[in-house]
């Protein structure tokens, strides 16, 4: 078209629109961030590394069979005996393909990432529920975090922490965080407004309303968010193998490099086993009826009520007897 436009553009295919160095600008911004918050980054590096490795060490300390039993008991307490029975073959499969330690490493990474993600996501979700401004500001950021291809997050985290677990953990946090915020916000907004109004009407402070009314009534939906965060973290923790995160991800990356289909499939199936276990266990956190703990608590309460009623009846009978006498 015009010669001026032709001169101005060098690299874009379009003849009208100039090449924007968006990537370069973002990288400059990222470098500034890295320089400014280097202390924070170093601190996070240490925290992620020690907590994930420490947890992996603790999990690896007992024998695989003992840990399997512990997992089965957890499954029974949080859900029922059926899940507890399912847990045992899931775990034994992992042991039998000789990926037990790698799986524990991945589990530890997921646990650290999930805890950090929730520490950020739940308060942020609460703020977003209370203030429309926060909600509007947070939403595009969450969209960006969620829709950016997950592998891209590995690049800046690699710059920050270098090869190793912390880079993988941070990428996992970024990728897994959004549903935690979204579902917490939704959960709080969903709480019956009349009940919140009742809280106000009896003179509750907003803290009292948050902790005594909104959060308890939002638990179910927040737990659905927690479940989502865990599932996303598990999928991302495998990608973390690309930055030397170790665990099952490392096995997968190694298998890709060596075109070792057999090993790759084994590692992939271990991820599936972990996913089934984590999903079923955390899915029951939201529903009060589902857990064995809740059932036991209910049984105790109803038996004590029954006892009371019996006592009352006996007292009535006695009273009647003395009256007739």
């Amino acid at each position, binding site marked *: 078209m015009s010669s001026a436009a032709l001169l101005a553009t060098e690299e874009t295919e379009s003849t009208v629109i100039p090449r924007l160095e968006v990537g370069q600008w973002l990288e400059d911004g990222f470098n500034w961030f890295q320089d400014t918050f280097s202390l924070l980054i170093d601190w996070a590096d240490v925290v992620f590394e020690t907590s994930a490795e420490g947890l992996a060490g603790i999990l690896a300390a007992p024998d695989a069979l003992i840990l399997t039993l512990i997992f089965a008991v957890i499954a029974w307490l949080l859900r029922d005996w059926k899940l507890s029975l399912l847990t045992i073959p899931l775990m034994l499969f992992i042991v039998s393909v000789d990926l037990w330690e790698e799986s524990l490493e991945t589990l530890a990474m997921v646990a650290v990432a999930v805890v950090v993600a929730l520490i950020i996501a739940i308060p942020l979700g609460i703020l977003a529920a209370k203030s429309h401004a926060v909600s509007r500001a947070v939403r595009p950021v969450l969209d960006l975090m969620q829709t950016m291809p997950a592998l891209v997050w590995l690049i800046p985290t690699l710059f920050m922490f270098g090869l190793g677990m912390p880079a993988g953990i941070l990428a996992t946090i970024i990728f897994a965080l959004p549903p935690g915020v979204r579902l917490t916000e939704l959960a709080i907004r969903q709480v019956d407004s*009349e009940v919140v*109004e*009742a*809280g106000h*009407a*009896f*003179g509750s402070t907003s803290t009292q309303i948050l902790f005594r009314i909104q959060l308890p009534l939002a638990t179910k939906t927040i737990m659905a968010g927690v479940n989502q965060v865990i599932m996303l973290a598990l999928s991302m923790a495998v990608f973390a193998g690309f930055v030397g995160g170790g665990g099952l991800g490392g096995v997968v990356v190694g298998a890709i490099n060596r075109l070792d289909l057999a090993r790759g499939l084994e590692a992939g199936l271990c991820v599936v086993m972990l996913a089934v276990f984590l999903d079923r266990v955390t899915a029951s956190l939201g529903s009060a009826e589902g857990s064995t703990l809740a059932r036991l608590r209910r049984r105790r309460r109803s038996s004590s*009520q029954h006892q009371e009623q019996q006592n009352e009846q006996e007292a009535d009978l006695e009273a009647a007897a003395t009256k007739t006498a």
Partner: protein
Amino acid sequence: MTESRSTPESAVSVRNVYKVFGRRPQHVVKKLKEGASRDELKSQGMAAVIDASFEVAPGEIFVVMGLSGSGKSTLIRTLNGIQPPTEGAVEIFGQDITAINPRQLRSIRREKISMVFQHFALLPHRTVGQNAAYALEVRGINRADREAKAEEALQLVGLGGYAGYYPHELSGGMRQRVGLARALAAETELMLMDEAFSALDPLIRKEMQDQLLELQQELGKTIVFITHDLNEAMRLGNRIAVMRDGRIVQNGTTEEILNDPANDYVAQFIQDVDRTRVLTARDVKEPPVALLGAEQGPRAAHRLMREHQTSALCVVDQAKRLQGVVYETDAAEGVATGKDTLEGLIRPMPTTAPQTVLAELLTAAAEHDAGVAVVDSDGRLEGVIPRVTLLSALADPSSGDFQTIPEEVQV
């Protein structure tokens, strides 16, 4: 804005309150004052309450009645500041709650006002006892004290022993009793009830209304009650404010509203009222045309009846206590057989207390030609309700036609 101070003895005093939702509420209020109608201003803001003023005396049940969208729920929420008025003053026991900080407002809500909600608004994750104790918990009262008080309140509403249950284990009526107990446990002088019984089925609703009236007599609370049901309004209310499109169109006693509706809207409303359940014996009783002393004879009775052209006369003793009734035929027979006293001629007469509603008098009136006698608690005659009076009281005054007598009166 008027600057008139409320009388200090008012429990609630609402003066020229406006509540507008929307972007420019102040502007809408200004326009409304200049005479613009609510519909004209719809695009700029939704005027839920327009220029509402009323006073509620301590110990009174004040009912605000209106259809949905009339602004009654918003109005009741301005009383405890959940919806702060756009303009105007709301005084609770002499304190203007529109001019205080949030901390003071909370303390007023804790100590002076409690509220019962249409859909109960119980906390599903807490037991009935913990729900009933909620107001006390918020105030920071220790567990033992608040549990004791909650149990007391639960007993008042007939739910003693249910403290350990969860709300979802109870029926709708029982849940609202818990809502009522929560408000009672707060021991506030003022109770706001927002369509409290509207979600309950009719039988339970009537039971709850009776219970509320009983509790009111016992505890002497001041109650502001919101309803869309005029029958409920008339059963409960000492005074009723009828709302329409955000304005209070009439504020008066049950009788005033029934017999002197302020406009066509109110008149239309009261058309459907079951007057037999609203009007009481006191409202329709008449002074007896003549009385017969117990010591008088059949001759005197006969003469009095002829004089007053009536077929029956009430017999009273010297303290004006009702002894019974003498019918014309009996008096004539007494004269014929030459009796000197009324002994053996006096028949029993159905009696009723002044506060009985007319519905409960219909059967008695149907069986006795002389009608029903209204007596006070000592048995003294206050007046009589002849059958004709009863029937005409049931007719709607706005239509003079006898054909509009409600169907229930097929006696």
